[in-house]
């Protein structure tokens, strides 16, 4: 539940999702669920040729299991709180 909890605080922030196939998609995080599936609005993709139709796509639902990284801004994270939260998970 920790990362679900964490991602909930990132809603409406801009993030860049890097998939396991090396494609990166930048967008505003709109929704996340317990499986860490992500819903992004207003997306741009770093690779124009792999999925040319992405130009017509405004929002995207990405299955959590296909994500490799989610790049965030430093200011979006409260690391001390995150450390505490991680500890709590072990209690």
């Amino acid at each position, binding site marked *: 539940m920790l990362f679900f909890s964490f991602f909930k605080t990132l809603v409406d922030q801009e993030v860049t999702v890097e998939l396991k196939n090396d494609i990166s998609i930048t967008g505003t995080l709109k*929704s996340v669920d317990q499986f860490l*599936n992500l819903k992004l609005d207003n*997306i741009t993709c770093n690779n124009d040729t792999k999925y*040319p139709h992405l130009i*017509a796509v*405004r929002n*995207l639902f*990405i299955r959590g299991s*296909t994500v490799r990284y989610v790049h965030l801004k430093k200011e979006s994270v409260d690391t001390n*709180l995150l450390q505490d939260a991680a500890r709590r998970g072990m209690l």
Partner: protein
Amino acid sequence: MSQAQIQQPHHQQQPNKNVDALSQGVEDLYLESYAFTTAAGIVGSVDRKVFVLLRDGRNLFGILRTFDQYANLVLQDTIERIYLPNNRYAEADRGVFLIRGENVVMLGELDIDKEDTAIEEMVQMPFNEADKEWEALNAERIKLETQRAKKLLKVSGLTSDFVKSDLY
């Protein structure tokens, strides 16, 4: 000597607010959770044109009709599209598809006014031909990746997370 105040740990700074939050009730807290369901993510796309990228690399375009909690999808008027290098593409009609959620990589809602702009500049070719070429490309990629995996393991002791079925 001036004395500095000891800083309270950050999450104790506003004890009153936390207590009030609790008294808000579990249910209210969960009202706010509504946005945190896959349903919230997909429900807005129902009865709209979407594209789905599957784990085996296929691009499907269709009208999303229904879904469920596992992101299983029902697509109507589905078209499978293959993109090939040098600005080529091919399409095939597939009718109604029921897609098992675990195979979905992404699902995007299409703007029907813009959906064809990508292929407008591309050259269409017959699907069977394209399919053959695509399969060949995939086979090539699998070969390459397995070789790479072997090398990684032998030389650096590292494992590769390449899976043959994930060609997206």
